């Protein structure tokens, strides 16, 4: 909202002589931070942020009123002669409770009724262009100055009786912006005998608008229900100065005053003559008193504030306050629709005293603190481990493009249940079922930037369609591609094209992931960057729930370990190239199933060479034996090794000479 310092000072003379920065700090202290200040001719224009609950400060006078309360100073009086209730020249019927009160007047305007330069300059400072039509500009000036929206109709274009009523669905209205609006039964309109002539509190109609030819105006200064106005503004996409003010709650008592001011302004500017002014409805809205106790005020403030002091502050804000020992009974002023509960009043007291005065104390420890959740610690442990293992943690958006999602499609998890109805664009329309596509995009970009090796991971929720709606579960995805090493004399550079999978498995086993989980080649889709480099990389995704959680025990239960020497025996085996290592190891383990002394079976070398028989490779299988209670004898180990060898032979392996 724009505030004109000169006008502000006219409304609050005590501000005169204060520097613009001082006013800026005052406003910020009241909860209205100033985003910018601009020197305009002999004044300053301040761009002030106001919160959604404060419709009452959306004018020069409204802001001055809050400042006056803060400074404990008087506002300048509004100089206006209250118009007497005259003859209702046209009947006005209020048919909806959403309009409780309608003040009007009919005035004759002389030809060429323009706008004084001073008013034009003020409107320009408010960012509003003057139309040089006295009735229009005067209404606008009042809106910015006093915050109450008014409207002027060309009375000669209004047919017959007026009513404020709900529109009939399908009725049409051409608004001042020239657009034809199709109305609904939730739209409140001002209508004449021919139909709607204005969207109440939002915008006037084109057919009755004031032009240079207008000779008689019918003024409107009313009160409309904020909820109705907000709904209309939203429905029609019409966010106007009027709808902003009515939508946040106008002051019903101000309706009559604004009508008087508008009539007076037209008389002063253009020599308009009043035919009659009259009001229908009741300006009083039902109001409830609010009780503020000493205890509540003290709890919120964190210190004793005398109720007498609180009462004085609230009175400065326009509240009516009755004090009894320990209790204030408060009626909020008609312009403060935001004051409804004791906490609101306490806030006002603190706000006007200045939030700086609130003391600072640590809260008492009530109840026992809880441990950090296992899920949080689990994620943190995995992230740190992976970062230490050389992977970079990524954060990517939760939604992906449909073709990215399709690249990891799972028929059991259709995208339809995870699709947004109003995405930013197609490329952000599906909540992802997998982190892999996002990670691949990141990897592709990194390769494109010339990274030789790309190591990434992300931990984030993935989505699954269910009849009840999308369900989330956290997942870990890891990507590894490019070439490792080559950065120093001791680490030979080697492409990860083939070896990467095993390296990645090492990372997974380190995290405790089951060995059945295999890294795979990334799925690529049309349009992903560096598809070729990606296709030579490796990736894997594991639900976080499948990664073992670090045990709760700080120190694990003692497990005895053997102090007797271990014996290692190597078997160099020639095997078929298509024999899976998993089946060989399983067969060896099965053959030694009852041998508690078997501590490990692992392949420690793979040899492939043209000197070997065609279709065969050599595996060096290392068996490790150890007993808990004795030193093993060579003969017993020989026996076990023979059983292992027999099992291997059963799979077509042969001991290599």
């Amino acid at each position: 909202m724009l505030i004109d310092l000169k006008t502000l000072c006219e409304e609050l003379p005590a501000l005169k002589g204060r520097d613009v920065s001082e006013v800026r700090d005052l406003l910020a202290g009241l909860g209205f931070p100033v985003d910018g200040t601009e020197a305009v001719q002999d004044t300053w224009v301040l761009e002030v942020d106001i919160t959604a609950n404060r419709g009452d400060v959306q004018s020069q006078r409204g802001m001055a009123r809050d400042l006056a309360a803060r400074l404990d100073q008087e506002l300048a009086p509004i100089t206006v002669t209250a118009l007497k209730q005259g003859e209702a020249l046209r009947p006005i019927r209020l048919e909806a409770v959403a309009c409780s009160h309608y003040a009007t007047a009919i005035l004759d305007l002389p030809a060429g009724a323009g706008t004084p330069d001073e008013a034009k300059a003020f409107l320009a400072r408010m960012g509003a262009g003057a139309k040089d039509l006295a009735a229009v500009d005067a209404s606008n000036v009042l809106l910015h100055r006093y915050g109450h929206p008014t409207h002027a109709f060309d009375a000669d274009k209004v047919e017959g009786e007026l009513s404020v009523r709900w529109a009939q669905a399908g009725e049409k209205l051409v608004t001042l912006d020239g657009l034809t609006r199709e109305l609904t039964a939730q739209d409140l309109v001002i209508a004449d005998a021919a139909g709607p002539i204005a969207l109440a509190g939002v915008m006037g109609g084109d057919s009755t608008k004031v032009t240079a030819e207008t000779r008689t105006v019918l003024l409107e200064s009313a009160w409309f229900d904020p909820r109705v106005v907000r709904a209309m503004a939203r429905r029609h996409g019409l966010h106007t100065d009027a709808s902003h003010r009515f939508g946040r709650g106008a002051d019903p008592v101000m309706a009559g005053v604004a009508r008087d001011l508008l009539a007076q302004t037209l008389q002063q500017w253009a020599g308009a003559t009043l035919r009659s002014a009259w009001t229908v409805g009741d300006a009083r809205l039902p109001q409830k008193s609010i009780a503020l106790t000493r205890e509540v005020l003290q709890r919120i403030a964190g210190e004793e504030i005398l109720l007498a002091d609180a009462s004085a502050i609230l009175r400065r804000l326009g509240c009516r306050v009755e004090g009894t020992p320990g209790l204030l009974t408060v009626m909020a002023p008609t312009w403060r629709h935001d004051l409804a509960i004791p906490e609101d009043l306490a806030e006002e007291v603190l706000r006007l005293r200045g939030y700086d005065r609130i003391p600072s104390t640590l809260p008492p420890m009530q109840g026992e603190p809880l441990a950090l959740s296992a899920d949080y610690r689990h994620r943190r442990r995995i992230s740190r481990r992976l970062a230490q293992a050389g992977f970079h943690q990524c954060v990517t958006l939760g939604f992906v493009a449909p073709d990215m999602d399709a690249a990891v499609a799972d028929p059991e998890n259709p995208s339809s249940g995870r699709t947004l109805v109003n995405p930013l664009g197609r490329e952000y329309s599906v909540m992802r079922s997998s982190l892999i596509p996002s990670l691949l995009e990141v990897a592709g970009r990194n390769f494109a930037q010339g990274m030789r090796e790309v190591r990434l991971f992300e931990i984030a929720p993935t989505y699954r369609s269910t009849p009840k709606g999308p369900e989330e579960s956290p997942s870990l995805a890891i990507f590894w591609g490019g070439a490792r090493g080559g950065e120093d004399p001791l680490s030979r550079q080697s492409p990860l094209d083939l070896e990467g999978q095993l390296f990645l498995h090492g990372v997974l086993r380190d995290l405790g992931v089951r060995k059945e989980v295999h890294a795979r080649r990334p799925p690529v889709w049309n349009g992903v960057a560096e598809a070729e480099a990606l296709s030579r990389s490796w990736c894997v995704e594991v639900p976080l729930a499948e990664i073992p959680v670090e045990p709760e025990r700080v120190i694990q239960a003692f497990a005895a370990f053997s102090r007797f020497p271990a014996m290692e025996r190597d078997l160099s085996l020639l095997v078929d190239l298509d024999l899976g290592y998993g089946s060989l190891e399983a067969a060896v383990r099965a053959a030694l199933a009852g041998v508690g002394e078997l501590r490990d079976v692992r392949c420690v070398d793979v040899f492939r060479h043209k000197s070997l028989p065609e279709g065969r490779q050599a595996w060096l299988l290392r068996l490790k034996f150890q007993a808990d209670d004795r030193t093993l004898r060579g003969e017993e180990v020989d026996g076990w090794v023979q059983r292992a060898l027999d099992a291997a032979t059963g799979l077509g392996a042969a001991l290599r000479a």
Partner: protein
Amino acid sequence: MDSALLPAEAADAASQFDALAAGCHDLDSLMRLKGAYLGREGSHAAGLMELLKTAPKDQKRELGAAINGLKNHWETVLRTRQSELEEARKRRAAQAAGWDPDLPPPMPNRGSLHPLNRLVDRLVEVFRPLGFHVEEGPEAENEVNNFDGLNIPEDHPARGSADTFYFEAHPELLLRTHTSPVQVRVLQRLAHQLDTLGGIRFLAPGRVYRKDEIDPTHSPMFHQVEGMLVGKGIGMHHLKGTLAFAMKGLFGPGAEVRFRPSYFPFVEPGCEVDVKCPLCGGSGCRVCKGSGWVEILGAGLVHPNVLSQAGIDPTVWSGFAFGMGVERMAMMVSQTPDLRLFFENDQRFLSTMGGLD
């Protein structure tokens, strides 16, 4: 030795010996030199011995002594030179086997935690001494938890499809627009045990979504950290004390906080909280736009409606809540010029900005 006794040729050879020995830079050439001077046949020594045989009798004794002296000298020089060369060979062998310590060493793998996650973890750490634990909630939320339970009016613009993402197949579900629905979930879950627990205090970090186009300061997905404390007799002073403590933990002992009145539907009173600019210490800089203060979070006392809707009696219980934007804080602290960098995940950015814990 008196070389005058020797023939000129032999005297000449003898005089060159020391220089020749010094000129041998490997053991092979030294052995060749040894052969040439001291070998059994054809060497200078052998020649001198021949000379001795044919020398007149009266000179034999003197010449013999001279020749012996010469041979002894050569042998000594050869031994010395040999051990020098052997020493040098050992040294070279050692050099060839080891590595120059100034060569670039192979570095242990070093990845990084994402700066946003680091900051979240840090915030958790900072609030931990006050007993805050971590609570989490789903990103796909319902309107009740995201709006209704937080006292957000039914016609609030944030509920519109221009601000909030909704699911096509489930119109009642949306992507949470803040981490505040975790407040609602936790309050509802703990309402009936509140007397036993004595109070609630937690942080709720998480990802949230708003329909903002991607630009240097906006992203449709970003992170928040919500904090909440519910107990008895909780007021604005407790909020201030807590945040002052936390900001000191985050920015150092000189950190100060400032409250400004503000409005959020789910708190009353509400405030914006500024922290004394961590970059200039309050003297005014580009980051704080010269004001010495940076806005860091929104907060307030939990609105009684939020408590009562969760089944908690607001006349008995009270509390405070605060919420901060992680990206915004990260950008401020690191002076990262563009929010999009956090989601691009360029490894160069991550290695510089992230760390290991």
